[in-house]
């Protein structure tokens, strides 16, 4: 790649001209409540199933983001979306309602990073003018698919995280206003032999560490070049592991590291290690962080959504949990 083995430097920089984030009721009671564009009153969104609810939420996020960008669906060249459901039905069925060419993506909870990177490459190549990038996740659909029936009386383990019910969409364009994507580091899959599906933070931290270290090394930057290095959903324990891993590389991010999973809930909400999910990073980024850029409180951030690439089958077959993380550098124009 033009910036290194894994890093792309964008000569022409795409703008994030609009963002929109919707969350469920629990997220709406958290510390970022005032930043979310929309908080659902109940997480069924008046639908007959949680899957349909997640799809409706995802669709709303995309439509409203495009509206906020002052565009019509027909102006958007492609929709890059993903989610955690089997066969990414939340994204596919949202795209069904839209008149936009659809590119479905899956990188677990780091899908939003993947979408931003691919979208930026498409724009800077000149082949497309505007793209929309979005992801979603929903607590109840994740529980049904990956864990247990909702009414089963189980206890959360101390390292467990709470899947965020949320969806976020960014509209990218070569012209317009808004912070720009300046560079990106495409992560490699990193598996550090963590097998506990209830300790995702620990499983994903190594991937985040390698991606961040690679990004800083290839661009010859120090961690403090960025106002904030923001991971997607490492949670409390995962963040600690990330700090340890990076310290062993001589990189100290204790001062400027934030994690969307840690930001979206507070301790009183009893979510143990924090939030997680494909919609966690996208909903927090498109509301809280875009607002920080707007208010001039941030000039540069390194956005690192993190994902755990497991399935129910892989866990039952004794596999460990591989992680992946993509880094997207976003700065004021």
């Amino acid at each position, binding site marked *: 790649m033009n910036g290194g083995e894994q890093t792309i430097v964008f000569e022409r920089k795409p703008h994030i001209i609009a963002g929109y984030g919707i969350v469920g009721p*629990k997220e709406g009671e958290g510390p970022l409540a005032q930043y979310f564009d929309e908080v659902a009153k109940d997480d069924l969104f008046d639908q007959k199933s949680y899957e349909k609810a997640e799809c409706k939420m995802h669709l709303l996020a995309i439509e409203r983001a495009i509206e906020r960008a002052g565009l019509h669906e027909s102006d958007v060249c492609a929709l890059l979306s993903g989610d955690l459901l089997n066969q990414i039905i939340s994204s596919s069925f949202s795209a069904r309602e839209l008149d936009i060419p659809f590119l479905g993506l899956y990188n677990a909870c780091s899908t939003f990073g993947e979408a931003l990177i691919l979208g930026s490459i498409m724009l800077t190549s000149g082949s497309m003018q505007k793209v929309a990038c979005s992801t979603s996740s929903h*607590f109840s659909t994740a529980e049904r698919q990956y864990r247990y029936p*909702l*009414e089963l009386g189980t206890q959360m383990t101390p390292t467990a995280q709470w899947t965020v019910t949320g969806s976020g969409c960014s509209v990218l364009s070569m012209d317009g206003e808004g912070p720009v994507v300046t560079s990106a580091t495409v992560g490699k899959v990193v598996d550090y032999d963590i097998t506990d599906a209830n300790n995702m933070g620990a499983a994903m931290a190594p991937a985040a560490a390698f991606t961040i270290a690679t990004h800083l090394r290839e661009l010859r930057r120090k961690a403090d070049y960025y106002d904030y290095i923001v991971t997607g959903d490492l949670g409390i324990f995962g963040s600690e592991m990330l700090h340890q891993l990076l310290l062993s590389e001589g990189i100290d991010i204790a001062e400027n590291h934030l994690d969307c999973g840690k930001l979206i809930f507070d301790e009183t909400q009893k979510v143990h290690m924090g939030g997680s999910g494909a919609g966690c990073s996208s909903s927090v980024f498109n509301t809280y962080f875009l607002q920080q850029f707007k208010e001039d409180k941030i000039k540069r951030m390194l956005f690192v959504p993190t994902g755990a690439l497991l399935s129910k089958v892989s866990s039952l077959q004794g596999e460990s949990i591989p992680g992946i993380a993509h880094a997207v550098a976003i700065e004021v124009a």
Partner: protein
Amino acid sequence: MDIFLQFLQAFAVGGFICLIGQLLINYTKMTSSRILVIFLLLGALLEGVQLFDPIESFAGCGITIPIVGFGAVLVKGAVKAMHETGLLGVLTGGIVAGAAGLAAAILFGFLMSVLFKSRTKS
């Protein structure tokens, strides 16, 4: 007084068994299914070596209400049926003895699924 003691014993033994279960959850990261199987097999084993009845006379529902009791019921039924009808009893005795609980679970499961919808956790 006698009745009070019965309840106290049931409370103590039942609580103790659940405590062991909780220790398993905390320190081995076992899922509910695995824990239920272990306790059920424990009950089956206790009945197999004929230790279950003496424990039951002390603990009453403290040992029959936990899933341990269900394991014992199944084995008790199988052994009894074996004595009565030989090899065929070996096959049928367990399920027959557990039939009430199984049928109840199936019926109520079906009923509740018709009457109620699952709700999200908070």
